[in-house]
């Protein structure tokens, strides 16, 4: 085999593998950025008075660490499941009358989800106007602090809960 052919073969192999990798990555990125993803909102009432910790929360070890460790009881009030579609708002009602608005903004190149959240009363926008987070599949983010029935609401949002690893 001549040197020219030898080098051409190496170049082709490198070019083809690179093009293949870029192609598949591009296809995956395009598909991910336009597809819907399931999500789950965990609405928990936490109190400092001693009481029961809902067994379903025991695997969420983050809720046993500061700033949550002052709570001695935690009760799941609701656990709605929803689907986040890029650019479309999804609403979840909270027991205090406010609503959580979630919007999937995009899927990041590393696979994480960029999500916009807001918590307000209907037709209001003064409570938590804007929150933008990036979260890995199955890893929650929390919004806490709303007082309710002598306790505090802890709202956890998990995007792609099928991939929960905790």
């Amino acid at each position, binding site marked *: 085999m001549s040197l020219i052919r030898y080098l051409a073969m190496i170049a082709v192999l490198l070019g083809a593998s690179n093009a293949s990798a870029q192609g598949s990555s591009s296809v995956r990125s395009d598909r991910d950025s336009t597809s819907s993803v399931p999500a789950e909102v965990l609405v928990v009432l936490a109190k400092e008075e001693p009481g029961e910790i809902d067994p379903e929360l025991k695997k969420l070890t983050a809720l046993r660490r500061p700033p949550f460790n002052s709570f001695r009881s935690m009760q799941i009030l609701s656990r709605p499941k929803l689907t986040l579609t890029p650019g479309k708002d999804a609403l979840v009602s909270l027991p205090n009358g406010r609503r959580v608005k979630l919007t999937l903004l995009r899927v990041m190149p590393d696979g994480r989800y960029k999500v916009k959240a807001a918590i307000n009363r209907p037709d209001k926008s003064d409570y938590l106007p804007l929150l*933008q987070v990036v979260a890995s599949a199955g890893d929650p983010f929390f919004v806490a602090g*709303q007082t309710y029935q002598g306790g505090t609401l802890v709202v956890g949002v998990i995007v792609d809960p099928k991939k929960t690893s905790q």
Partner: protein
Amino acid sequence: MESPKPEDQKLQMFFDGELPPEEEAALRRSLESTPEGMAQIREWAQIREAMQTASADWSGQIDSDSLFARIEAEVSAPVIPIEPARQAKPPLHSVPGGRERRVWGAVATGFAAAAAIFLTVMAWPETHQDPSGVTAEVRTRGSEVLEVDFGTNTGTIFEVEGGAGESLAVVWIDDGEVGLQ
């Protein structure tokens, strides 16, 4: 060319991710314990990044489709025998065939080595630890706040460690509406 010292070979294998985990951890600790070692880690990381950038640029310029088509055309083309020149070889300009092959072989081996380095860099495992000891997998796990507007309230952003060591974002609103139902 001098052959690399055993220590250099070990360092090479370390940066190529070829050392067994125990040896890799021991060498990493050893390197991180001295300023020279830390500097060497940074230097290799910079070289690796530069090679990745250069190889990405290079491979991006290759039109693999047309190259494939050209090679296929060459391979399928009929072989035309070439009559050897009947002239007498000029004694002062003849190059022995064996030596020519050795020269071609050396060049080809060089390109093969470059290709091997390219593939090694491209296939560098993402789960390798950075100098701070954090794996790439943990870095991309968890959640983090990019932007928050507390409106008329005040609030605090916390980072809480999750079950797998990942950092989870907590936004805590200082709710002034006590007793709101």
